[in-house]
């Protein structure tokens, strides 16, 4: 259907576009390293106070400084830290579990939060797309009205509130053990982890499914009335080709909202983790801030920032894949 040369051109321009997007994400990433490194100097107290205790003498504090390399010039400290990060060394824990490498410490919480985000996003995506598509097919039907009500209801409700209600209903009233365990660790027990994932994921996903549904409905409704879709219909193309082209054209705003929604869900996990007691990075973040575990805090801020950059980058790349106007 497409000449080899034109297919090649398409791939080349797409690769160039992806390259440009990646390069333009780098300055943001550098900015985030500045911010997370700067945290150390903005926050009061710090590791020295924490280690030396209230009765620590000036000499003791000086020795700790020397050991941690805090007396070196700022740029040396920064470069040392960035160098470590680039080689996978994020430093060590000082207060909570002295001597443990942070990378090891964070592995499990990051995984738990990752699965929670993915599960929440999947729920938001499937529910949102399905409800949106159904109401676009029959606009102004009772189905459309019902889905509008449900959508508005779900996106008006905060995810942590939904989490508390779910916890109350399934944990307190029905007394399901899996509902409240919060133990999401796939290396230990897959079935149990999946069960523990259900309620937090529903709390996260349901609250965002409404937005996805509304956008999907609007876009598909617009597209199915476009002349080129009607032409494909009277031409007698197979139904799946028409639906494919409809989705291809209506999906861009949906992609934008999805990227944004996944970001929101990721952020939402912090609170929902606290409600369900999931040992994810949300709980970790709170503890790191309380105990002034500065290297951990830096790493977490860096991770969270990078996740948002990554989501945006993927959204941008998807744009390029889907829309020839963006590529060129």
């Amino acid at each position, binding site marked *: 259907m497409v*000449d080899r040369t034109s297919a090649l051109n398409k791939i080349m321009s797409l690769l160039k576009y992806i390259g440009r997007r990646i390069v333009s994400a780098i300055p943001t990433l550098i900015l985030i390293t500045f911010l997370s490194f700067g945290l150390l100097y903005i926050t009061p107290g710090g590791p020295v106070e924490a280690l030396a205790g209230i009765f620590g003498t000036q000499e003791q504090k000086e020795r700790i400084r020397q050991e941690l390399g805090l007396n070196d010039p700022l740029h040396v400290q920064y470069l040392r830290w960035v160098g470590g990060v680039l080689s996978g060394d994020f430093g060590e824990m000082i207060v909570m579990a002295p001597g443990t490498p942070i990378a090891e410490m964070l592995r499990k919480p990051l995984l738990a939060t990752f699965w929670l985000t993915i599960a929440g996003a999947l729920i938001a995506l499937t529910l949102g797309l399905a409800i949106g598509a159904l109401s676009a097919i029959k606009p102004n039907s009772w189905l459309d*009205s019902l889905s509008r009500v449900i959508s508005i209801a779900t996106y008006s409700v905060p995810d942590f509130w939904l989490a508390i209600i779910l916890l109350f209903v399934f944990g307190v009233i029905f007394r399901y053990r899996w509902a409240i365990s919060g133990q999401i660790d796939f290396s230990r027990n897959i079935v149990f982890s999946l069960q523990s994932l259900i309620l937090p994921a529903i709390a996260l996903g349901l609250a965002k499914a409404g937005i996805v549904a509304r956008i999907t409905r609007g876009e598909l409704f617009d597209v199915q009335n*476009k*002349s*080129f879709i009607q*032409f494909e219909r*009277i*031409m*007698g193309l197979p139904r799946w080709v028409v639906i494919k*082209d409809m989705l291809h054209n209506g999906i861009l705003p949906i992609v934008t909202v999805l990227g944004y929604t996944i970001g929101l869900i990721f952020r939402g996990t912090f609170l929902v983790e606290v409600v369900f007691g999931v040992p994810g990075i949300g709980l970790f973040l709170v503890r790191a801030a309380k105990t002034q575990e500065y290297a951990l805090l830096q790493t977490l801020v860096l991770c969270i920032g990078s996740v948002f950059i990554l989501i945006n980058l993927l959204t941008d790349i998807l744009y390029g894949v889907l829309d020839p106007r963006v590529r060129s």
Partner: protein
Amino acid sequence: MTALIEAESVKRYYSNASWLQRLLFLGGSEIQAVDGVTLRIEKGEIVGLVGESGCGKTTLGWLLAGLEQPTEGAVRFKGRSLGNIDAETRKKVQLLFQYPRESLNPRHNVRTILSYPIRKMGHTATADITARIHSLLEAVGLSARYADRYSFQLSGGELQRVALARTLALEPEFIVCDEPTSAVDMNVKVQILKLLSDISREKGISLLFISHDLSAVRFIADRICVMYLGKIVEQAPAQQLFDHPCHPYTMALLDAIADIDPNAIRKASLHGQPPSPMAPPAGCRFHPRCAYTEQVGTICWERGPALQPLSTDHLVRCFLYPEVSQDPDRKQ
């Protein structure tokens, strides 16, 4: 002899009741977009359809293209109802859309857009498809370079040419052209009209050319139908319609374009907006705006006129002419 395509007392009503209204039996109002149109188009003939916005001309076009199903009456292509025709014959009836930018998929380049109908016609070899794309582009006056462009890289006229090429790929026998020149500028308009009429003559394709632009219709059409509020009020060969308009509405339309001289006395100028198709006037639908009502008398708002011939090929729907009798349709 059966016409290539014919509409017989075709009606299309739209209900604007919501599901809640329907549930409570409140039934909203009904829009009579097309109200009893009979029209025959012969092979190779170009018929112009003119009228103000909202008079139902696009709906009639969609009915003839099979994009809409009539509420009453039937549309027949070569004597067979469009509703239950086989897919092969169905492709012979096509539509050229009003907004060229919306009628081409913005995610595909011209090559892919054209390859859809070419494949649909059963040509699958890559070399064959490429050759056909080039000959189609050539037929609509575009060079082969255009194959790798996307719709956002094309001008309005070029878009309409690609849209036409895409339609021609299906080898249609009848094309409904829904205001194809309303979105392009003057010189492009002339080019497109010439292209359409050349292609029609060359391949013997019949056209229904829908427009509110009388000069465009005059340029291209063999026969013209004038539509007002869902009904055809006058139908005549193009030249005759322009030389001897008979219906007061046609006179007013022609008057509106012919008067370049500001001092000319307007014989039948048109005032106000057309009435709502949700509540069309009783009797003749044109009577509230007609300049001849007083002359003809109360019959104009008491009864509706039928579309009847003044001569063999000149039909008119007006009591101004004694030949015209009352419309048997009860709804008048």
